[in-house]
């Protein structure tokens, strides 16, 4: 591709180097679009869109007034949170089928971003519930409770991911958790319809088309900005997970290499010591034999043998000491 564009070939060493950051031109553009989107959403949510000032048949106010503006963050963050968990389940399933590290990293990134978005959704839901329902938390509201449980399931997933274990074992275990956890998503999603008597939550706002004009536009904008934020975070988290795994592998390889070099140095030292001792032993033995040959035959021969044995024993001791070291 570089040659097609007339660019010089990238040096091999640079190509092999791992990037030191997770940014790229496309993520920078995505980040800029996200920033612009956040500014636009703030303007539409707080300035242009009207407060919910509906009135009942007798003219009594039934709207939520300014509290309705929380919806522009609350609803999109809940939906994108579910998307994150869906990506986690998909990545986990494909990982178990193909054993592909790419899908595993995607599942990890999806779970983490899903937990963040679900957390935002729960927090904004509580802030919204206080003025509208008159309570921060309602145990009878099935969607609220099950969304919290869903977040806890994926927090468990992240706990397993953070454990020190062999990468393959960790990936398999977390993949199973990612798949089982997704069972809760349809239950959470349909809970409002199934248990109408047990929820304070309204039914799907978009399905019933109870909002229109600027309110509807701002909600759609909220979904778009939420999607941009989701994509930007997902790409970065994916790259962080990838670099993390690379760093873990390279650290492991460096540690193995270090141990190998230590072992070869030690072997070299031992070999030198053994060779030196053997030479010394030969010298001592020859001298004794020479002395014995020149003077008294049998007796000196015995001395020579004793000398060799003694030196040989010293060499073995040194070898043992070196191996102990």
């Amino acid at each position, binding site marked *: 591709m570089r040659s097609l564009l007339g660019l010089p070939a990238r040096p091999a060493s640079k190509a092999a180097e791992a990037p030191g950051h997770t940014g790229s031109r496309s993520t920078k553009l995505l980040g800029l679009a996200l920033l612009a989107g956040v500014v636009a959403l703030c303007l539409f949510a707080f300035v242009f869109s009207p407060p919910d000032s509906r009135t009942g048949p007798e003219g009594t106010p039934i709207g939520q007034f300014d509290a309705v503006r929380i919806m522009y963050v609350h609803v999109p963050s809940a939906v994108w949170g579910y998307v994150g968990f869906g990506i986690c389940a998909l990545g986990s399933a494909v990982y178990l089928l193909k054993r592909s590290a790419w899908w595993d990293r995607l599942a990890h990134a999806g779970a983490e971003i899903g937990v963040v978005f679900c957390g935002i959704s729960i927090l904004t839901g509580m802030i919204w519930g206080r003025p509208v329902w008159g309570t921060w938390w309602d145990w009878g509201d099935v969607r609220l409770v*099950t969304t919290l449980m869903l977040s*806890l399931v994926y927090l*468990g997933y992240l706990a*397993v991911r953070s454990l020190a274990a062999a990468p393959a074992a960790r990936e398999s*275990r977390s993949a199973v958790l990612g798949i*089982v956890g997704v*069972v809760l998503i349809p239950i959470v999603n349909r809970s409002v319809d199934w248990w109408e008597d047990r929820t304070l939550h309204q039914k799907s706002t978009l399905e019933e088309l109870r909002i229109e004009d600027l309110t509807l536009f701002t909600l759609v904008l909220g979904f778009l900005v939420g999607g941009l934020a989701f994509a930007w975070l997902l790409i970065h988290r994916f790259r962080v997970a990838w670099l993390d795994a690379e760093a873990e592998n390279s650290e492991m390889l460096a540690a193995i290499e270090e141990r190998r070099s230590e072992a070869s140095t030690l072997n070299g030292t031992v070999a030198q010591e053994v060779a030196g001792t053997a030479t010394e032993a030969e010298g001592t033995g020859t001298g004794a034999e020479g002395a014995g040959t020149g003077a008294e035959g049998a007796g000196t021969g015995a001395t020579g043998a004793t000398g060799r044995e003694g030196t040989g024993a010293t060499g073995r001791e040194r070898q043992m000491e070196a191996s102990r070291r």
Partner: protein
Amino acid sequence: MRSVLLIAAKDLRIELRSRVFLYQVIPFAITTLVLLGFALDADRAALRNFSSGLYWVTVMLAALLTAQRSVSLERSSGAADAIRLSGVAAAKIFAGKSLALFVYLIVLELLMVLGIVVLYDATLTDAGLAAATAVVATLGIAGAGTLYGVLAAGSGVGETLLPVLLLPVLAPVLISATRAFGDALGASSVNGWAWFGLVGLCSLLYMLLGGLSYGPILEADS
């Protein structure tokens, strides 16, 4: 099917010989029932109203202990490796271990029903619904407990990890079994059989997913 029964019988036999279930799990469940009674200020009416919820919370806490025990026993003696090497399919191992856990829990639940009748003054108005809910919910708890038990034990921090993983996953079973049991005990006016349907759906999913994913978990441990 024979290998499933063999594995279940092996687990049950170990339990009968060690008597941990008898001397530790059952007393734990009774203690929990008593403590929950104290926590609600021994208010008889409140205890009667909340007896179904307190019952299922106690069952789940006892299930945590039993699931952990079922896995740790095998790992410490190396039996898990022996079963893996025996050539039995992972799904059958899962079914056998779930069956054993199911039997322990059903025995415990029978005793616990006596416990809530005596201690909380609960009355069984629909025994059929209560029995059906107990059987189906226990299947789900046993399936999820077996899967998550082996998963957590392999991580080396099973004691702390298992509750974190298992309890949120069992939340739908807890919610729906409590509602169905509430109807069976005459403590609430909901349609218990509708909630029973949800218990059945969750249990079916846990058993299916457990059977499918037990193999990869065993592979990860080896």
